[in-house]
């Protein structure tokens, strides 16, 4: 299937897969530190396993950003 990932067209061999499976397929390091937006909506981390990515979807992911002074 064809999706748009982080702004770029991407062809995947799978016809459908979960967000969690997509992060694994894309070799995303530390997926627990990643925020995912699917078609403009930010997903709860709890929904990564149950949310399906389909043909034509737009997926964005980025890393949590935080730090401190201690």
């Amino acid at each position, binding site marked *: 299937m064809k999706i748009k990932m982080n702004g770029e067209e991407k062809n995947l061999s799978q016809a459908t897969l979960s967000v969690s499976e997509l992060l694994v397929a894309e070799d995303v390091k530390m997926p627990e530190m990643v*925020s995912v937006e699917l078609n403009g909506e930010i997903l709860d981390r709890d929904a990564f396993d149950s949310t399906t990515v389909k043909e034509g979807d737009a997926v964005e992911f980025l890393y949590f950003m935080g*730090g401190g002074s*201690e």
Partner: protein
Amino acid sequence: MQEISIPGTIIDEMIAHSERLNPIESCGYLAGKETTVTKHYEMTNVDQAHDHFTFDPKEQFSVVKDARNEGLQLQVVYHSHPESPARLSEEDLRLLQDPNMVYIIVSLAAERPDLKAFRIQDGTVSSVAITRV
């Protein structure tokens, strides 16, 4: 030492942002091309804390798309240390993991604001020289 060039107006904006939020930590992105910064994005510190910051993911997605649309790369993540020096804290070293990003600390601990820039690659910290242009 690596270098990054930042317009004086953007350096002044970062300091002003940090002083405005003090004693809460400020945070933001700088974007540009190659080693020259051209755009400043103030970010919301959702922690609203004096010793910690976290970006708002919704704002992050918005900034990533804006920079992409303008053909810019996100080059710098900055945050302030209201009460401690311009060095990476233990928490920074644990959480700031992107080897392609320059991390700037704006310290307000002394009488005059102090800015220092770093890169973290494979757990090794190196200094990055800031050139005011």
